[in-house]
């Protein structure tokens, strides 16, 4: 029974990805192209070239953090849709610490910048969670509103307050350069020694390791520690948890803050790892991708790594498809959205099937045929 349950859980994402591919195939057919050829280009471009592989890792780095951030709030049934705004604030805070402080050694400056990023994210997360706990304001809408406010505030800060004076007279709207000591070191020296070179190798930086470490640590914390137990109890049955002496509000608050702190780090892959300054055109939308990744991973920190790699692969593949097969890369965005819809339906059906099986077992009747794909009426 246990092995079958595990198989079933693994089958759900595979089925959903298959369904996403099916719908995109129909779209590709509809515009008169051969889906097999398009997917072939995608796989060949993404997986057989060194630059693509490193590009996927670079693209996956913020996605791991974004997925993890969203997953941490989902774990206590809170919907932090505000990861987007939280990472804008984190990115600005890190850049601010990076370009205002000078002459610090890297051993102090970089950790300070990372802490500032987390504090920036948490500051932006504090408003919605306090309003949720104190005033009952639904966090979905308040976090979305905070995203718009963050976007306007960052625009104001970059364009009107901290614009790099050296760029005056140019159309570039960006902050001054971050001190070298606050930049996240590239992983290129390691890979160069292994014989990998190129600009995509150069881009890959140590934030990837931080993301992976966070996933592993949080997987352990959630599965094996007292706090992790409390989190699971609050998520499964808040009433029972409260009765057992677990303060729901406290657990929810800290998980939301954890989510916002991780969110603060998302932008650093580009800001401290690559550009070295905060530009008005810095990558946006990563927070929303994080929602998709958390859903795909079922809020499991280790699953987040896999889901982020998949999305990194799809993103890189989309570029290849656009360039070599001349199919709009939005086809892949649509595929991502379909995968998400399919995965949540698949997980729901699976959960329902498992519940039914348990009920049957409890009642002592023999189990019957495998699950019907059609929903119960």
């Amino acid at each position: 029974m246990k092995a079958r349950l595990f198989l079933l859980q693994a089958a759900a994402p595979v089925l959903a990805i298959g369904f996403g591919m099916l719908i995109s195939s129909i779209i590709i057919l509809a515009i008169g192209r051969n889906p097999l050829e398009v997917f072939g280009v995608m796989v060949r471009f993404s997986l057989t070239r060194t630059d693509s592989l490193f590009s996927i890792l670079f693209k996956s780095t913020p996605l791991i953090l974004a997925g993890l951030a969203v997953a941490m709030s989902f774990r206590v049934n809170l919907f932090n849709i505000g990861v987007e705004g939280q990472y804008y604030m984190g990115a600005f805070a890190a850049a601010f610490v990076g370009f205002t402080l000078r002459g610090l050694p890297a051993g102090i400056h970089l950790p300070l910048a990372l802490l500032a990023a987390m504090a920036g994210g948490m500051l932006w997360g504090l408003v919605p969670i306090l309003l949720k706990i104190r005033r009952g304001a639904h966090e979905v809408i308040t976090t979305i509103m905070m995203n718009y406010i963050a976007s306007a505030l960052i625009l104001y800060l970059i364009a009107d307050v901290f614009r790099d004076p050296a760029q005056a007279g140019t159309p570039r709207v960006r902050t001054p350069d971050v001190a070298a000591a606050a930049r996240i070191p590239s992983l290129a020296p390691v890979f160069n020694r292994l014989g990998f070179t190129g600009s995509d190798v150069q881009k890959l930086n140590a934030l990837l390791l931080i993301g992976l470490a966070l996933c592993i640590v949080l997987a352990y914390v959630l599965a094996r520690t007292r706090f992790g137990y409390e989190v699971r109890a609050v998520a499964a049955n808040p009433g029972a948890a409260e009765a057992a002496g677990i303060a729901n509000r406290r657990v929810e608050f800290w998980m939301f803050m954890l989510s916002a702190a991780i969110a603060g780090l998302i932008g650093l892959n580009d800001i401290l790892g690559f550009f070295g300054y905060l530009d008005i055109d810095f990558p946006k939308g990563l927070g929303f991708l994080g929602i998709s990744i958390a859903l795909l991973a079922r809020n499991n920190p280790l699953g987040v790594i896999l889901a982020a790699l998949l999305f990194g692969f799809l993103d890189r593949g989309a570029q290849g498809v656009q360039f070599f097969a001349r199919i709009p890369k939005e086809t892949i965005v649509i595929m991502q959205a379909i995968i998400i819809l399919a995965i949540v339906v698949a997980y729901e059906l699976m959960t329902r099937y498992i519940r039914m099986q348990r009920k049957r077992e409890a009642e002592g009747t023999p189990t019957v045929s495998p699950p019907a794909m059609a929903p119960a009426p």
Partner: protein
Amino acid sequence: METLTSLLSLALIASAVRVTMPILLTALGAVYSERSGVVNIGLEGIMIMGTFFGAVGNYAFAQAFPQTVANAPDLAPLAGVLAAVAAGVAFGLIHALVTVTFRVNQIISGVALNLLAAGLARFLNILLFTQATQSPGVRGFTPIDIPVLKDVAVLGPLARGISPMIVVALILVALSQWILLRTKFGLRLRAVGEYPLAADTLGVSVTRMRYAGVLLSGALAGMAGSYLAIEQAHLYFEGMTQGRGFIALAAMIFGNWWPVGALGASALFGYFDALSLRLVRLPVPSQFITVLPHIVTILVLAGFVRRAQMPAADGVPYSKEEE
């Protein structure tokens, strides 16, 4: 003093009325959906579909039947509105299928719809117009005067030369209020949102009523989008909804889940929206005016303005066989 008069100027109020409409129509849709017990944060995405199909339907009709359009120019924008409503209903159908039939979390489905809409609009725009972010320009409805009001001294300027969609939207508010309060359909819709088990026991199909609520919300949000594209911007461009779908949800909450309340709240948000568009000379940076509606939304949700009375079973999936 100068600032104060400009804050109440007729031009500003007329502009506020115009920008209120998309928020109002979507908020009205949200009322139907949430009254039936389904939270629909996919309304933002449905609005995006509405802006896109509103422009495309309008443009395609004008291209396909130039003769007809020359004689009756209002048919093209009408085709746009109908296309937008159809697209909205189609998206509503996905949301209903996923949340009512499959009983997946309603927030998650809404988030996925928003992603889908953003990708789909870009994709279709590339296919049709070879670029991702913008459609060709389209023609709006011929402006109309409201018969009696146009002669009233103060209201005159507001009742002359306005979009017929504004009149339709205001009629829809009154109609919806009456439907929800007085008709059998309205009573049943509210019943499945408050206490689905009781409604079910009395023979009301919870599934059917919830589908109705969600599909109506899709139709109205699609129409709201078409208003933005056809009447306001005269084209579709990417990101033109600017989160108005979410603001509409807040307006619906502020309006206490009633059409007339949603009208009042939408008008308030519309006013701030107009203020940010008009750039009345104020001693603060423009970005701060832009976010005023968002800040007010947060204050409203936090109950600093009034206490919310949401339908009891709002957001809770219903199934016969369990629990």
